[in-house]
């Protein structure tokens, strides 16, 4: 499944493809959370002139926060459990090439030095 901005000649690493798909799902859950929480709290909790005797509470929490933050928090936790245990893949992340970057740099420096020497000799 290659996107327009991806080179069809390259066989892409499944770890990259899985990570990208998982990142998109996570971004969607963030969008869902903000769309649920902020408008709900805005309409139910902002600018209310509260009468203590009629204040609506659910298990001791102001009802607007119970449905606007507490319940979405529980739903987000359930989603996280699903994501971690049933969706996210255990991809192999590969061996760490400790010192590979430094070695590559040293090799380039030596090659450049050789080139200069050769250039000087010629």
């Amino acid at each position, binding site marked *: 499944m290659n996107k327009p*901005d*991806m*080179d069809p*000649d*390259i*066989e*892409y*690493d499944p*770890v*990259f493809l*899985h*990570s*990208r798909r*998982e*990142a998109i799902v*996570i971004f969607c*859950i*963030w969008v869902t*959370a*903000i769309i649920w*929480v*902020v408008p709900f*709290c*805005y309409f139910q*909790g*902002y*600018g*209310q*002139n*509260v009468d203590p005797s009629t*204040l609506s*509470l659910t*298990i*001791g*929490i*102001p009802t*607007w*926060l119970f449905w*606007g*933050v507490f319940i*979405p*928090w529980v739903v*987000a*936790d359930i989603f*996280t459990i699903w*994501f*971690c*245990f049933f969706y*996210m*893949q*255990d991809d192999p*992340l590969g061996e760490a*090439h*400790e*010192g*590979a*970057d*430094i070695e590559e*740099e040293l090799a380039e*420096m030596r090659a450049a030095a050789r080139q200069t020497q050769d250039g000087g000799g010629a």
Partner: protein
Amino acid sequence: METFLNAGTTFAAGSNSALLTFCLYTLAVFGIAWLSNRLLQSKSFMSEYFLGSRSLGVWAFALTFAATSSSGGSFTGFPSKIYTHGWVLALWIGSYMVVPICTMGLLGKRLNQVARISGSITVPDVMRDRFHNKYFGLLAVSLIVFFMSFNLVAQFKAGALILQTLLADVDMFHTVSIRLFSSMTETGGIFEGVKAGYLLCLFTFGVAVIIYTTYGGFHAVVWTDVMQGVVMVCGVMIMLPLALYQVGKLAPSGESGLEYSTREMAKMTPPQAGTATLRLTAARDRDTTLRSDTWLPFTGESGEQRLLRLTDLVMIPAGQTEVADIGILELTAAGDISRKMNQLTASDLDPEIDVTDVDTTPYQYGSDPSHAGAYVSAPGPSATDVNGFLPVSLAISFFFMWAISGSGQPSNMVRLMAFKDARTLRLSIFTVAMYYSAIYFPLVIIFCCARLLIPGMEAESDRIMPAMAVFLSENAGIAWLAGLLVAAPFAAVMSTVDSFLLMISSALVRDIYQRNINPAAEEKLIKRLSYLFTLIVGTAAMIGAINPPQFLQDIIVYVGSGLAACFLAPVVYALYWPRANAHGCIAGMLAGFAAHLSLYFSGIFANGSFFRPYRIMNFDPIIFGLLVSFITVYVVTLITPAPSPELVRKYFGKPPAKPTP
């Protein structure tokens, strides 16, 4: 001879256990550093010292991530805000429901893989290797050192202040600080105007952190984070039932403690700060000293009961009967006054002191009758802002700030490079999600209850966490528990400071020295430099915190959002877009930095201060910074040449199958 009123016996016993806890805690931390140092002998030094050999398992990774992210602010600033502004803080912190999955899941797996492919140890390493561009690495390291240096000084100061708060009532602390440091503070220079108690705390805290971080490296930081993370969650889990039980004892039968607490909060009006005159009925032949937590009841003009507390230490000299213009905080809610009056005993009161000339200022939002119930509704009471504590634009901004900006913090990214495998990542996301759920919403409940249990703490709201810990444990008859509870905020700030310290020294040793000055450096030299730079950076930050610039809390906010504006977009594109190139990402990093900075600069002209940034449509500058950065990377990348196919294959292509033997 002096007369002391309200000697603060309530907090003294708890504070002694705080001192004991602090000592035990420090010993444990040193033990961990010693064990970690032994690991350094047997593995690749650089990778072990700065990245723990990429071997973190679930508990270590989850708790180091959680503890580092929830800095000292979570255990001092956040409880103080809940206490001051009420239930709306549940919305303020609401995005933490998705913070673990966003900050760990958005980048974690892929960043870890890319770092392994190149052998990168730091975030600038990743950027440099991914695009094979040393200028990008230098830009990234410059921004990190620029931002983090300010932040490190700020965090050292925060650590010292927290320790000072915890030990405020320990007599030995005052004696030792005066003996050791009073002569130093009199010498002037950088010590001018610095209090001896602050210096003692700064040096104790600073030396402890510098030693264990320098000696033990990344593993010492991670293991102390684990210990600190456990202390934090245990503290909250113990406080929650104690708070609900104790507030429940005030509730009428048939009503739960939390329900009673919220209904009483709905009736509350904010206290009012101001000044008053204190008058003794007759002059005394000795000085009369009144502590800052002294309560003074008096009768109003129409015979009503009024009650105020002092906000500073006050002394009425011998032979005088009056002091004018002293700082006070007056309770305005009838329920608060009656609850506090019930707590005061005869020994707390001095019937020979009268209060006159009370002059107070109401809150900008919350005192007016049209804002009734401000503590249980949004935007919450505010002493300074007519729009209230949390206008809806700020509520949206905080969704970006915590979840998205958190993903863009290089200190979090380093941890994402250190876990062992993908299984560790997914189990850690789950663990941190449960961890935050167990901490943040319960904290809101605990400190809403605190409004009923300990009225009038607005005068010193940063002390509400230790005050509540001592209050709850002593009322439950288990005073020793206070030691564990007050250790939580200290643990939180320690775990933030150590990881920032290691980030700066890794930037200097790895990104500047090894990668740009001397790539052929022997491991022995690198090892010495790593110890040396960690020691030097830590000591320099500690010295910077002796007499730090003002606005440190604002600097922490600026740095956090600034780093995200610089790093998030380039890292996201670098990891997920094969077409991304160095030109685009460098441009995006600079554009994010400039856009964010320009809004802070505009604040000087629009609002009179750099730290009161200009807010487009009242949104935080982080949103504008991120937007500009993401757009710039995309546009500049498309109009500049594509990266070389070799580079794309290296980081995006399927790795060749291992040859079978």
